[in-house]
């Protein structure tokens, strides 16, 4: 099944570092015409870096890229596109308000004669040709925002095909699609491969891989672990390669014993949590001082669950109790009053207030709660800010330093610190270690454990499964909006979590 023939894309010994962090270390990859290569790995394994280098968004520190035997060196994605590389990113780049045809030909609208008006006939023709390559027909004049997601995905791919690429890269193309749509997409990609387009397919979903890919490459810690034919790949073997097993050796002795945990009072309970087409009968119980992990892939409903509990989303049905008392009509304000705080996944967009100092960022929730006054109490605030900065070892010159000058890890610590300064006893932490360096991650793990020893309970959501086993007393595995398994901290090895999270509910 593996196509043979001249290689279309040859990457040799590609390396890339960001500051002191090596994101990619000497990765080589060869792709032949008509080959579909699945690219797998955990977050931070180097998948996106590799994609970014190939599509010209970033330049490698060392190593070469060849397309059809000719060495390529791209300054930007536009040059890569002209060089035969097209990418469909996970986040769509469609312009709502423009038609399907206008979106497919975006940036390359054909013009007529001297006046430079848009030649709508040529435009429609180009768009139709691109769609025909996919064997699809869509209403060309329809506003793209009014198409269902699956068809928007097709518009994205058609847009990528307009430049007649030799290599097409798809980053998590199925994360927003349902089962039937996934099947249709896979059939479409096989058809494209049949026309000689080489495809790189980045995905987490194990069941899709054998259907779509010829070969697969597993990355871990910026290195290539193994490349092999898809027929040799079993889900267990692949999960083991992705996880690497090494991370599971250091299971902490601090984990609470299950029997001991059960004797503690429940601080947060969700019964029959439902959210239309997101969550289905989710039960959750968090005990005093417990660290409860939630494992799940993107789209499994983990963020929605936290947002529902915290009252950001109002469509979580079912009962939520804080220390045994029903919490109805929830909002961030009412939850903070009950001692429950949340740190959002999107640190820049929803966590920090970039124009304020670190000190003010730390005190946003404490004001009016811990410090009950209409006036800003500078002295008390300074004391609290300094104590929090010291406790969390936030690297800042003082509370006055502007928070957007800090590193991501220190910003994250400040966002957690905001809840501690407001004396929260239940923390909902959504991806607290996303995009921060290893050292800061370790600091956040030990902070959460320390807080746990002091009686503060946390719900810890992470897509880096390795860290769940390190930090959590128990782990819930969430898949397609359901709790599929509950493991104790020591049972929750990366491999086991990965296997559980990746299996698919459908037969």
């Amino acid at each position: 099944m593996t196509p043979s023939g001249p290689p279309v894309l040859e990457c040799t010994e590609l390396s890339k570092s960001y500051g002191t962090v090596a994101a990619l270390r000497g990765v080589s990859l060869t792709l032949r015409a008509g080959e579909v290569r699945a690219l797998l790995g955990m977050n931070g394994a180097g998948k996106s870096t590799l994609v970014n280098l190939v599509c010209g968004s970033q330049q490698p520190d060392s190593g070469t890229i060849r397309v059809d035997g000719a060495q390529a060196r791209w300054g930007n994605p536009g040059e890569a596109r002209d060089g035969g590389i097209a990418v469909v990113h996970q986040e769509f780049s469609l312009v709502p308000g423009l038609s399907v045809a206008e979106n497919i030909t975006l940036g390359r609208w054909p013009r007529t004669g001297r006046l430079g008006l848009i030649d709508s006939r040529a435009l429609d023709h180009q768009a139709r040709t691109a769609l025909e390559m996919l064997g699809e027909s869509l209403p060309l004049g329809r506003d793209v925002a009014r198409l269902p997601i699956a068809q928007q995905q097709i518009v994205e791919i058609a847009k990528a095909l307009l430049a007649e690429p030799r290599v097409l890269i798809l980053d998590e193309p199925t994360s927003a699609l349902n089962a039937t749509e996934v099947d249709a997409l896979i059939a479409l990609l096989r058809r494209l491969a049949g026309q000689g387009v080489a495809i790189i397919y980045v995905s987490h979903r194990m069941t899709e891989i054998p259907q779509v890919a010829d070969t697969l490459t597993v990355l871990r810690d910026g290195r290539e672990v193994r490349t092999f034919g898809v027929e040799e790949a079993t889900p267990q073997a692949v999960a083991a390669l992705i996880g690497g097993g090494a991370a599971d050796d250091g299971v902490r002795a601090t984990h609470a014993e299950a029997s001991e945990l059960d004797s503690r009072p429940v601080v947060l309970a969700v019964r029959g949590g439902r959210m239309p087409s997101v969550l289905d009968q989710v039960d959750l119980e968090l005990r005093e001082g417990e660290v409860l992990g939630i494992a799940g892939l993107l789209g499994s409903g983990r963020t929605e669950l936290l947002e529902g509990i915290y009252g950001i989303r109002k469509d979580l049905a079912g009962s939520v109790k804080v220390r045994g008392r029903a919490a109805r009509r929830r909002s961030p304000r009412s939850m903070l009053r009950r001692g429950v705080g949340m740190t959002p996944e999107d640190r820049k967009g929803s966590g920090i207030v970039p124009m304020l100092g670190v000190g003010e960022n730390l005190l946003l929730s404490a004001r009016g709660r811990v410090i009950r006054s209409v006036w800003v109490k500078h002295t008390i605030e300074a004391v609290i800010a300094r104590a929090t900065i010291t406790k969390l070892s936030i690297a800042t010159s003082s509370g006055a330093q502007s928070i957007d000058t800090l590193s991501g890890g220190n910003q994250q610590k400040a966002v957690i610190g905001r809840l501690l300064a407001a004396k929260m006893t239940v923390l909902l932490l959504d991806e607290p270690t996303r995009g921060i360096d290893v050292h800061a991650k370790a600091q956040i793990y030990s902070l959460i454990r320390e807080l746990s020893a002091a009686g503060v309970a946390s719900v810890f959501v992470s897509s880096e499964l390795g860290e769940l086993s390190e930090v959590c007393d128990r782990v819930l595995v969430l898949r397609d909006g359901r709790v599929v398994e509950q493991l104790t901290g020591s049972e929750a090895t990366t491999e086991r979590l990965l296997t559980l999270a990746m299996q698919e509910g459908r037969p």
Partner: protein
Amino acid sequence: MTSPTTTTEATTPSTSPHPLAAMAGRLRSWDGIGLFLVLVVLYVALSFASPMFLTLDNQLNILQQAAFFGIVAFAMTLVIVSGEIDISVGSMAALSSSLLGVLVVNVGLPMWVACLTVLVSAGSVGAFAGWVRAAFGVPTFIATLALYLALRGLAQLLTNNFPLPIDSDKFFYWGSGRLFGVIPVAAVYLVVVFAVIAVVARKTVFGRSVYAVGGNARSAELSGIPVRRVRIAVMAISGVAAAITGLLLSAQLASGNSTIANGLEFDAIAATIIGGAALSGGKGTLLGTLIGVVFIAALLNGMVLIGVNPYAQQVVRGAVVLVAVMVNVARYRNARGTA
């Protein structure tokens, strides 16, 4: 001017050195120092251009003139820092003046009751605009654009577009008289309103919340700050400030008048922008706006003294605002880029 830090607004470190040294340090890192120098240059230039300019009498005139848009500009600073805008202030001032005329002349209410009614009404209309923003997500630009038209129309409707003469020496004194025969009363209001809003912005939880909402509303919401209430409150404050201006103008003209305060929104927003507030929200100081207010008032006064063609004056005003915005944006981008 290039310093990205916002030391002036941050929590005071408790290891305080000598107060004077601390003040000097603040001054050095103060964003508005460049603006202050520009103001100094303008003063020097104008005093050379006209010997009249730097006299005490003229400076007091400038302060009185400044009061007519400065009070609104201070409230506007809160509005803009919170990420909103209020372009209905001119119409709101006209409506306030007309309403006062009707209440005093036609209804015969005592002056102080009428004034209080006007202030409360204006605050309510402002709060309404804030509520439309907070509850329906209608941008305040649109909401206050609608009010810009509607309130002016309402003012004209109330008065039939004729001035309603208000015959009261007391009212005249409290609006455009001079304390001890020297200091314009309006200037006193200007200073008082500045002090109050500056303290609110710096020293109250509400004031700091305005900055948090403008800097990142989502984050503020998740941190438990009542974002809706903050938005409603700043718009209400802006309405009240416009009403104060309307009352001052009524006193000066001794009538309730629906044609006053045309272009008030321009001078108020211009002063705020010149003072360094970011239209995107989260950034701006009252001290900066104060300098912006004095700058505009001095510029207008100076141009009249020199005898600049009134049409040319408008061109200059427009150009000044454009340059101020360009400088602000460039400065902000630099600060971001180095971060």
